[in-house]
């Protein structure tokens, strides 16, 4: 009878309890159902660190996109972004498209954007530091990454406000169906109309910006078509904006409410914001799940997942795996068993420490990971320079929530009021 307490009703994944606090259910998954077949949602769920990490690295068995055994990938034509790199699965085309921007976001090109990031962070902090208090989500974090990415693309600064609005509609359309999806697609179409002349202009008169690079990149002499360029931009705006925005809010939340004692350490040594970022990405990252489709039968924990089945890689659960991290439910910026600092796509580190799974691993590892960390750390550091003695305005907080974690809904505080000395 004891085993029954551990049985999981798949409808629990849709419950408000799970959405506000998924961690007890994650533990039951890891301990009793390391491979859970969710018949209700027609999917499989894996949750242990080692299994999630291995699946991320096993491209032969797991594909990011649903593939056709005898033809091209199935594209979600109703996707908010339109055709985009995420849908090209494990193909050479995906690798090529990724390479178009990889040098900018990951490698040697990143450094050239840092002054931009500093400047925009400075402007925004200035704008919201006059009153002695700030609602971080609306007044700062929601605004910041989208302005950075639209600048990197080379979009006109005068139109930044437009991107902020489109971006918010796109994001709402990502996580929810129905009217949100319709509004998201409407915003995307409006943005596409706006972008068309810009794309045409860059094709005729290339500049030294990312938009020009996207327009002109060639694979075997062929460029991306107009829809692909526009889809790529939509993806960069949304993916590059929303996740970083929520990461910044999460970092502040944990400092103000989860570990005010360790916040004192950060105030003394602002370089520790790097550790706050790492531990936040482990403890409760913005994104908790990634989806894959099996390309063949996969055996795991004595069972067989059939071909073309959806598998949820629950990285939020893997990050709390006590098989890997000591006291995994404690937020600790001085944690010795987690690699602090820049993440590796390979998930291996010279120090032999383990990394968090918050960006995924491997082929589809978050393309903006290095940028996200830079933005978040710079933003938090600038804020603390200007906003002296920051403290929570309210003694209690409802916590980090997710409107619908199961559909990829991002986890973050709804709002976060901070008071400081002027």
């Amino acid at each position: 009878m004891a085993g029954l307490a551990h049985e999981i009703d798949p409808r629990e994944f849709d419950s408000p309890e799970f959405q506000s606090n998924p961690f007890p259910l994650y533990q039951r998954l890891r301990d009793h159902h390391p491979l859970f077949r969710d018949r209700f949602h027609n999917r499989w769920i894996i949750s242990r660190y080692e299994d999630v990490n291995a699946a991320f690295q096993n491209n032969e068995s797991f594909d990011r996109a649903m593939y056709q055994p005898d033809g091209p990938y199935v594209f979600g034509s109703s996707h908010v972004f339109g055709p985009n790199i995420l849908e090209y699965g494990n193909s050479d085309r995906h690798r090529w498209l990724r390479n178009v921007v990889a040098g900018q976001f990951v490698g040697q090109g990143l450094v050239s954007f840092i002054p931009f990031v500093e400047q925009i962070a400075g402007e925004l902090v200035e704008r919201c530091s006059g009153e002695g208090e700030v609602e971080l989500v609306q007044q700062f974090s929601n605004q910041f990454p989208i302005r950075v990415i639209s600048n990197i693309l080379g979009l006109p600064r005068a139109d930044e406000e437009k991107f902020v609005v489109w971006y918010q509609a796109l994001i709402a359309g990502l996580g929810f169906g129905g009217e949100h999806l319709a509004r998201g697609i409407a915003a995307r179409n409006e943005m596409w109309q706006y972008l068309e002349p810009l794309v045409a202009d860059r094709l005729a008169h290339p500049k030294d910006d990312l938009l020009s690079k996207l327009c002109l990149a060639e694979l075997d002499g062929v460029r991306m078509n107009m829809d692909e360029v526009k889809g790529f931009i939509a993806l960069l705006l949304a993916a590059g904006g929303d996740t970083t925005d929520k990461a910044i809010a999460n970092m502040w939340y944990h400092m103000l409410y989860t570990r005010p004692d360790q916040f004192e350490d950060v105030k003394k040594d602002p370089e520790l914001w790097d550790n706050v970022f790492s531990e936040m990405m482990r403890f409760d990252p913005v994104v908790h799940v990634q989806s894959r489709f099996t390309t063949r039968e996969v055996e795991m924990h004595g069972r067989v997942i059939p071909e073309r089945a959806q598998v949820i890689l629950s990285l939020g659960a893997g990050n709390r795996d006590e098989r890997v991290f000591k006291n995994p439910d404690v937020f600790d910026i001085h944690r010795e068993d987690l690699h602090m600092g820049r993440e590796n796509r390979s998930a291996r580190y010279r120090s032999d420490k383990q990394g968090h799974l918050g960006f995924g691993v491997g082929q589809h590892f978050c393309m903006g990971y290095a940028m996200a960390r830079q933005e978040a750390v710079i933003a938090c550091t600038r804020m603390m320079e200007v906003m002296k003695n920051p403290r929570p305005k309210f003694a209690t907080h409802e916590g980090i929530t997710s409107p619908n974690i199961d559909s990829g809904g991002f986890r973050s505080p709804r709002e976060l009021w901070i008071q400081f000395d002027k």
Partner: protein
Amino acid sequence: MKVVIDIERCMMSGECCYNHPWLFSFGEDGFPEVLVPELTTEQQRKEARQSIQVCPSGAISVIE
């Protein structure tokens, strides 16, 4: 023309292996290994140059 990796500088990011799997692969120890000893085609040379760009630790270089 050859592509070389400075293993002392390498931080094991994995970017070279994932972005340019025809040129690099992971060794047993997790560090990248060069698959093509001599870059003979223009495509290989182009990829080698791109790999320098994506490497976050600046560990990749090309020698004549």
